């Protein structure tokens, strides 16, 4: 950590003199591979609407944390997101209602419930930071959490990636090869929910899903195999993260949304460069 601050502090840029920017840069570099890896599978499995809903439902998580009197609502947001993800995964498999209807319904309900609770007494403005995010509020403890999450997802990706891929391509085919498709779907949904929820405070729930989806969607324009897909998503996710963060410093804008604009630019570029 100290070495990181020394190393970046030596860079000949104004922003590199500030500890909050060095923290933010480290966070962006830790988040980029998480977004790239999970986003690729989210796009493959067509779960973009699911991850969007998880982001928006975070308001209810915040509300629960506030009602429970927690100093840091994250303690309520993470379990709530995990439960919600598991619940949606279960309903998707056990109900005949189309899954996008289920997700839309859950999103509308959890978002409204959160707004109603948080706006009691007209004080919703206090929670605006959750909407657009504030990457400069990052504490060293948050960085430690991120640094622990990255190897955890790495291990999951080393052991289970093939199963997630196969179960996403064709569930009965995966079952015929001995995979427990339902458990895989729940596990993946919960991991996505945790990463999305954890990053909301820094990037904002309005744009967090774009950070997950855009690098993967751009990588699809270039990649034809699974390995190249991840490499491109990593590169685009990392590049838009760093460019967006530094731009947001000079332009004095919200970092999350600025990163999304860069990711969007990469998407447009790859779309133009796409092989026929």
């Amino acid at each position, binding site marked *: 950590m100290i070495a990181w601050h020394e190393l970046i502090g030596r860079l000949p840029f104004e922003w590199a003199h500030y500890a909050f920017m060095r923290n933010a840069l480290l966070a962006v570099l830790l988040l980029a591979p998480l977004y790239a*890896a999970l986003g690729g599978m989210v796009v*493959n499995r067509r779960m973009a609407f699911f991850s969007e809903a998880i982001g928006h439902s975070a308001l209810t998580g915040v509300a629960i944390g506030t009602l429970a009197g927690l100093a840091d609502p994250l303690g309520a947001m993470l379990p709530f997101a995990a439960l919600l993800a598991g619940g949606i995964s279960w309903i998707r498999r056990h109900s*005949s209602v189309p899954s996008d209807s289920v997700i839309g319904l859950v999103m509308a309900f959890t978002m409204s419930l959160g707004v109603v609770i948080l706006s009691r007494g007209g004080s919703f403005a206090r929670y605006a930071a959750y909407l657009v995010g504030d990457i400069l509020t990052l504490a060293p403890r948050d960085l430690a959490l991120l640094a622990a999450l990255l190897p955890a997802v790495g291990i999951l*990706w*080393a*052991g289970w*990636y*093939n*199963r997630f*891929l*196969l179960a996403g*391509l*064709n*569930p*009965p*085919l995966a*079952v*015929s*090869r001995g995979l427990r*498709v339902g458990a895989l779907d729940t596990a993946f949904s919960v991991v996505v929910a945790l990463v999305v929820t954890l990053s909301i405070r820094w990037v904002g729930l309005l744009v967090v899903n774009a950070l997950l989806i855009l690098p993967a969607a751009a*990588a*699809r*324009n270039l*990649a*034809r*195999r*699974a*390995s*190249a*897909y*991840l490499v491109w998503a990593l590169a685009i996710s990392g590049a838009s993260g760093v460019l967006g963060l530094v731009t947001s410093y000079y332009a004095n804008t919200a970092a999350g949304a600025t990163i999304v604009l860069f990711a969007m630019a990469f998407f447009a570029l790859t779309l133009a460069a796409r092989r026929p």
Partner: protein
Amino acid sequence: MTIGGRVILEDINLHVHCGELTAIVGPNGAGKTTLFRAMLGELPHTGERHFMQRDWATEFRAPRIGYVPQRLDLDREAPVTTLDLFAAATSRRPVWTGVGARARAEAQRSLAVVAADHLVDRPLGRLSGGELQRVLLALALQPLPDLLLLDEPVAGIDPAGIDAFYRMVSDLRRRHDLSILLISHDLPAAARVADRMIHLNRRVLHDGPPANVLADPDVRRAFGTAPAAEPRPEAAP
């Protein structure tokens, strides 16, 4: 078995023998695909499965089932190649790290059986319907199953591709003494390759040699088929 309180299948009792190719026919919604999914264990059911092994000396194991799905609806941009699919299904190494030389050689060997080894590096979305079915068949045979389930394997494939696919299936069956269950809407084609035909509509309505089942007035009414004896005109080259 029931789904959402509705009885989908009841009183189904099938004996499938080694090396036998059984065609399952029935109207849409008859429960054909549901039967397969229940056999795979994907859907809950109250049925039982008994697996009689030829060789009593080997220890008991669950039957291995190979499955060729109805149709893999892939978006054409999906960055997954035939090799990725094989490696994901058969090897432990996560495919995002690439695919090793051995897994590649194995996939190619499996694909060669269905004359598809040249498709190994092709993205799945760029395969034609017939090519994709051959790839999925090769995958279902790796490792060699005791029972092969084919769900509408030729839907949407051109006539020449259908003939080639069925020739391949017949050949594999003879070579490996495979038991095969085949769901098909194309009754004449199914009758030509099958030893036995089952007419299914929530329960087994007919079960016997294809010619007998097709000759049954009920079946002919249900499907509007020509008599089984009438040869089908050959597909134009």
